[in-house]
Every structure is written in structure tokens, then in C-alpha cells.
């Protein structure tokens, strides 16, 4: 296993130390329990926004802590949901009296741990709302299963809710916006290679030299099916068709489009993918009004990409454009 690490079980802690050294001017790091919090937290009168999940998806979530986005992030072990004590302490650290929003990706572990944390925080008198994101169209939705995974829309929801909170919207309002973003967002991903967690040291799945895996998650889970390698245009058609038909996005819709790298794909390829997505949407009369191209929600060194769309309205566009100042997303500040 080839990784720039010292020991598999020290990765998360040591990366946190690295972040502390790099961003100590803007972030505070707690190690036990582990969370990252903007250094001016709690911001009085502002809704606090907390997210978290397994590590290995960097920059999500720690890279999104800062003005205009998250107040705190809880990193679990690699690909493992964090624990309720982390979320509880993070919630307490960011509560400025206006309540705290938990943005939770829909994975059994994340949901259950955040639920326990919310119960504990409420027990301590903090108002908490949780919104669960579930935008991954690769997973069939059903009342009887774990439901769809939360993926790319989470990044966008964190940005937009962060802006709403900076405007001093109430907890109910910020939570409503979060639900709206999730409701108007859809994603799907694919992989050219598996990834390998430091502790397992084995590839998350096996792929032939001429195969790709469609409908991949962000935890190295195998996807829904595999196919022979195809040109980028076909890969995008495949992903974007599933995304567009699901909501559906219709001619005349204005969208925010994210082309996200899974970690091991060169940026030049992501721009080829973005070109194809632009063509695909243009053919359907859907206008890209805002975009994000890069590595935002990754799966360690997995090669591949995901596509996320968010249907925009004027308020969401305004909140997206609002200043943000975090390690991984920064504009207007």
C-alpha cells in the first residue's frame, strides 16, 4: 500500500494537526473528541452549522469550515461516520443562541450517530435541527431500504446554508433552505479505479483494465454495475441522463452544475467532462448559471468523477454568490 502516511491509525489525527498548523489563524482543532471549528465560533445570534462524516473525502468537510459555510466539521475515521460525542461537542462549540443545524449525509451510520448527538444536545438545551441529504440517483429510493446516499449536493447545501446563516436567518429558515437545496439537487458518480483505505490496505473493489464502475458511492463501495470503458462524452451522457431524468430538470431550468473529481483524476480530465456536461445540458435547453469544477467530495485516490445539479432560483443563486472564506472554497472575501 503506497500512501504518504506514517501509520494507518494515525492518519486522521495527523492530518488534523497539519490543518491546525496550516490554518491555525482561522480554525481551531479539538482532538478528543475530534472536530474543526471556525476560530470565531460561536457567532452570537447566528445559526451554527455542523456537518461531518468519515474522513477520506477531503476537502469535505473540514475544508469547508469558515465564514459563510460550516461552523464546525466532525471527521470520523477514514470512511467511518464520526461518533455522537464529536458532534455533541461541536454543536456546543458553535451554538450562538440561535440553534444549530446538522447537515447529515444519508448513510445509516451518519444518520444514527447524528441522531444520538442531537438527542444529547437537546438534552443540554440546544435547539438542533437535522437535514439529511440524499441526492444520489444511483441508489434506488424506497421506504424499505436505507434510501439514497447523500453526496455532492452536501457541499452545495453547506455553502448555501452557510450564507443563509450569515444573513441571520432563523434555524427553521436555514433548515428549510437546506431541504430545498437537497430537494432540487441530484447527483451520480462513476469510478475508473477503486481506492484503498489505510487500514484495509486492499482495493475497495476490483476493476478490469477495460472496465469502469457506474453509480459509485464515495466510500469505495462498489457501484450499481460495471461497463466497458467509454469516451468521456458517453460517460457524461450516462451520468447526466440519470441525473436529469430523475428530478426531472426541464428545458428552461437554470442550474448550478458541479463536476467533481473523486480524488485521483487530473483536473484536465474534469474540464473535458465539464465540456461534455455543458453540451449535454445545452442540448436539453438547461442553462448552467453557476458551476464548480474540481475535487470537492472525494474518495481518497479513486479516479473518476461525479456530476451534481442544483436547480437554481434567485434566492439560491444569491446565497451561492455570497462571500465564503474557507480553506477549500473562497470568494468575495
Amino acid at each position, binding site marked *: 500500500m503506497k500512501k504518504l502516511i506514517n501509520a494507518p491509525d494515525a492518519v486522521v489525527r495527523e492530518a488534523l494537526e497539519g490543518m491546525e498548523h496550516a490554518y491555525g489563524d482561522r480554525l481551531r482543532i479539538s482532538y478528543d473528541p475530534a472536530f474543526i471549528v471556525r476560530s470565531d465560533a460561536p457567532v452570537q445570534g447566528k445559526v451554527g452549522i455542523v456537518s461531518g462524516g468519515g474522513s477520506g473525502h477531503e476537502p469535505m468537510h473540514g475544508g469547508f469550515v469558515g465564514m459563510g459555510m460550516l461552523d464546525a466539521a466532525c471527521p470520523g475515521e477514514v*470512511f*467511518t461516520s464520526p461518533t455522537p460525542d464529536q458532534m455533541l461537542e461541536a454543536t456546543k462549540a458553535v451554538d450562538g443562541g440561535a440553534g444549530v443545524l446538522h447537515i447529515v449525509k444519508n448513510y445509516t451510520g451518519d444518520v444514527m*450517530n447524528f441522531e444520538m448527538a442531537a438527542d444529547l444536545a437537546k438534552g443540554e438545551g440546544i435547539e438542533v435541527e437535522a437535514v439529511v441529504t440524499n441526492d444520489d440517483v444511483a*441508489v434506488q429510493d424506497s421506504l424499505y*431500504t436505507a434510501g439514497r446516499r447523500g453526496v455532492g449536493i452536501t457541499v452545495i447545501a453547506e455553502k448555501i446554508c452557510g450564507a443563509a446563516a450569515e444573513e441571520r436567518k432563523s434555524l427553521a429558515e436555514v433548515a428549510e433552505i437546506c431541504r430545498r437545496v437537497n430537494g432540487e439537487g441530484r447527483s451520480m458518480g462513476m469510478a475508473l479505479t477503486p481506492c484503498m483505505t489505510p487500514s*484495509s490496505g486492499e482495493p475497495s473493489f476490483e476493476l478490469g483494465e477495460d472496465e469502469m464502475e457506474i453509480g459509485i458511492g464515495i466510500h469505495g463501495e*462498489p457501484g450499481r454495475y460495471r461497463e466497458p470503458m467509454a469516451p468521456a462524452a458517453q460517460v457524461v451522457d450516462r451520468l447526466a441522463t440519470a441525473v436529469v431524468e430523475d428530478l426531472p430538470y426541464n428545458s428552461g431550468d437554470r442550474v448550478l452544475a458541479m463536476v467533481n473529481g473523486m480524488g485521483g483524476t487530473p483536473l484536465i480530465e474534469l474540464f473535458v467532462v465539464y465540456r461534455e456536461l455543458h453540451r449535454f445540458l445545452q442540448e436539453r435547453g438547461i442553462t448552467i448559471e453557476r458551476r464548480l469544477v474540481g475535487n470537492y467530495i472525494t474518495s481518497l485516490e479513486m479516479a473518476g468523477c461525479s456530476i451534481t445539479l442544483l436547480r437554481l432560483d434567485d434566492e439560491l443563486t444569491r446565497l451561492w454568490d455570497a462571500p465564503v472564506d474557507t480553506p477549500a472554497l473562497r470568494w468575495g472575501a
Partner: protein
Amino acid sequence: MTEEAATIDHAGVLAWIRRYAAVIEEHRVELVRLDTAIGDGDHGTNMDRGMKKVLEKLDGSEGDDIGATLKAVGMTLVSSVGGAAGPLYGTLFLQMGTATAGSSTLDVGALADALDAGVKGVQARGKAEPGDKTMVDALLPAVAALREAQADGGVGPAAAAERAAAAAEEGMKATIPMEARKGRASYLGPRSVGHQDPGATSSYLLLRSAGEAFATA
């Protein structure tokens, strides 16, 4: 059949927990492999991290309140395992702790009550039904086996736990042909068929550890 005590005491419970920690360490890689096939490959690592924390915790523990010890185990698992298994095994032990609060010994009936309460907690938290390809598929048959042993009468805790382990093993193997409907494996849909559920496996190991620990207790 050698003479067996009708109850296990606090030391027996500690032996069980310690045995489970050792068994999990032994099976860490196997659990990771099972979870890699239909999940994200962390189940063995998560459980091993959690049980090691539990061992640390137990080292300083005093008294003979089985309920308090089981609750401490649950709390430790909740705050160190993470993932789906953390809240689920945490809840299992927390509820077993509640069911045995204040007890310094457990007979087979009390054992059955405790596991029953634990599994009910797991189901309340995770909403899994039998057949969803989860730990519940190993745990429910174990509860039933304990109940049977209790009804049969004259079966000691070690023998009862062995029967429970055998039932859990059956339940674990029965997860192989199932299509997952809960947890991460459910994302695979039909591709989850043909693989043994990692959580059901770690649950079987929990019962097997009980059988082994109680037999020598």
C-alpha cells in the same frame, strides 16, 4: 456434560467482553474483507478500535454491577466505533445494561431478557427487519435460542450461550443469499447477494465469545 453453574457473575461478564475483544482482533481482517465486498471495508477496524477502547475502560472499572459494566461498554462503543456499528452495538450493550441494572449474577432467563432488550434497541435504532441482511439476522435467532434454553430448564448459561451461538451462526450464514435492504450493502441491490453480512458475522462472534467465556468462567 460437566457440572455447570446456573448463573454467571460479574467476572463471567468481564471474561465475555475480554474474550470478544480478542476474537474481534483475530477476525479483524476477515471482517474488513466481508465489508469490502458489500460495504466500505471498515467493519473489522471499527469493532477492533472500539473493543480495544472497551478493554482500556474495563481495566479501571470496579464493583460487581453487571448492568453498570454493560452500560459502560455501550457508551465506549458509541463514542469510539463510529459508522453504523457504533450506535448499533452501543445500543445493544446500553440496553442490555439497562435490563441488568443492579444485578451481580445472571441466570439464563436474565441473559435472554438482556439480549432481547438489546436486540429490540438495535431494531428501534436501525429499523432493520429479519431478512434485511444485517446483524439482526444473527441476533434474533440467538435470542430465540436463549429463550428455548430457558424454557427447557436446567440448561446453564454456558450451554445456553453455545446454543445461541449456533443459532447466530445459522442466522449469519443465512444472510449470504439475502439481498440487503438496510445499511451500506443495500446500495448494491442484487449485487449484495452471495456475500455474508459483516455485522451478522461480528454478532455471531459475540455469542460465540459468550459460550467460550462462560464455559471456562
